[in-house]
């Protein structure tokens, strides 16, 4: 499966460099964030791959200056019973990435959650609201600088 995947992708996207990481028996592909929609569309549509199920979209905050966030996609091919992890780096100064919710609808809420927790804006998302926190909340709690105990007064109390 790994050979097939890398072969198909390099044939389809000769201009993109894929970093292939293999650990714990899982395959991860890392590439530039500008290509995410093209690659995902191809992975879903290609007959021999058929990654039809998007399990999760999430992010990691590395708490470093350059490429602070990594957006992680877990996709699964029900036909081949194969799980693939896609990764794109997102810089804090340009904290945006294209939404994949037009490809898999299940990415809709997952991206909303990532936006809520990390403040990463998913471009062309149909309904980018906060998932868990109230809309008036100013912070993104899963960023590493947000304290564990929270910020006093950050959540307004309900009106009497």
């Amino acid at each position: 499966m790994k050979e097939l995947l890398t072969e198909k992708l390099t044939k389809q996207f000769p201009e993109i460099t894929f970093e292939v990481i293999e650990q714990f028996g899982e395959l991860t592909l890392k590439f530039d964030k500008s290509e995410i929609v093209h690659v995902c569309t191809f992975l879903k549509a290609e007959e021999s791959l058929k990654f039809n199920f998007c399990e999760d979209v999430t992010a990691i905050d590395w708490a470093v200056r350059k490429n602070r966030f990594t957006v992680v996609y877990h996709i699964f091919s029900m036909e081949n019973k194969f799980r693939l992890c896609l990764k794109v780096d997102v810089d804090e100064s340009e904290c945006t990435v294209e939404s994949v919710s037009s490809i898999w609808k299940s990415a809709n809420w997952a991206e909303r959650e990532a936006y809520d927790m990390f403040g990463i804006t998913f471009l062309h998302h149909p309904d980018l609201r906060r998932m868990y926190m109230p809309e008036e909340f100013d912070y993104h709690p899963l960023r590493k600088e947000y304290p564990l105990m929270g910020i006093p007064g950050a959540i307004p109390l309900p009106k009497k």
Partner: protein
Amino acid sequence: MQKLTKDDVHPKIVQALLGADVHITVDDALENEMILNMGPQHPATHGVLRLLLRLDGETVVACVPELGYLHRGYEKMAENMTYLEFVPHTDRLDYISPPANNVAYALAVEKLAGITAPPRAQYIRMLLAELARMCSHLVAIGALAMDVGALTVFLWGLREREKILDFFDAICGARFTTSYTRIGGVASDVTSDALKNIIAFINQFEEKFDEMERLLNGNRIFIERLEGVGVIGKDDAIDLGFTGPNLRGSGVEFDLRRATPYLFYNEMDFNIPVYTEGDCLARYFVRSDELRESAKIVRQVIDKIPNGEVMLNSPKKALPRKTEIYTKMEELIHDFMIVNHGINPPVGEVYHAVENPKGELGFYLVSKGEGQPWRMKIRSPSFANLQAIPLMVKGHMISDVVAIVGSIDPIMGEADK
């Protein structure tokens, strides 16, 4: 349920509810259009789910689910505690089936740390996961029946569930918050008495469940309330991230126990019930069939369970035995290091998903080689399943919304994390 004014609803929610192409405002809505707030405190929403419904008469035109009323920030908390310390918190995710969550979490950490639990421990985990599945489906069927007006099934289901909870009590020492798994095994061994009692329970269970089913399958009100309601097709179900019984109710034969076998599920003989209708009734049938399959697996597990250790002997990764901690210096040191500094798995990332009663529960762990995870992401099945509600309730009555939510069987503890 109360009628809302414009000030009660956040403008962004109103916008989502109304859609960009419709021009009505909440204050002077059309005579028969209104916006209704259902939940978060509503007995039929199974916890603190809030649904905002836009109604035309009694028909639902649009629906926006609001989550976060039970958000406790477990992912943030996990970054600040060792891998072992997080086990009790997994009980509080899907609180109807805590042992299944324990097992899912332990498997993910073990994959990251590169260890495997001894066979007996894995069989015990399988036993508990299946008992938890039975627990969960009994509650799911009971609550669905109660939502559409058949209270007896709920009480009968809870009576059977109570017996399973007694086994959890005997095996784990707690009925509800089991916290049973450890990294590299389980907390304590199962006695042969407990196994005998479980077999006795399974033997009488099928008959009891037949009785329960007779109450529902011959009940015209129950069938008519569910048949053809909340239909979701095969492609939509996959696209929206459905997993578990909900997905199998839509005609997709997908079960992680078969697709990516873990524990010893590939040695077990069980069927994956699939119904193609995709309505609430199909989801109910999948659950009731799965109950029988789980009972079958429990029987096989007890037949095949090997003797041996229930905890891995790996001083740096797994907790040593209590008797040795009290008598030997080395073990005392290892115990101290594991409890205080954690097991320090190698640098790397791992995603491990298992088939929980509600669907695919996955843990994504990012390790920097420290005692605490750098990042933990919980892929909870209820969260993904709830996403389909707006599509499913469109065009149905308010009373059908109750049946649809009940048939999806969301648990807000894991949807809100």
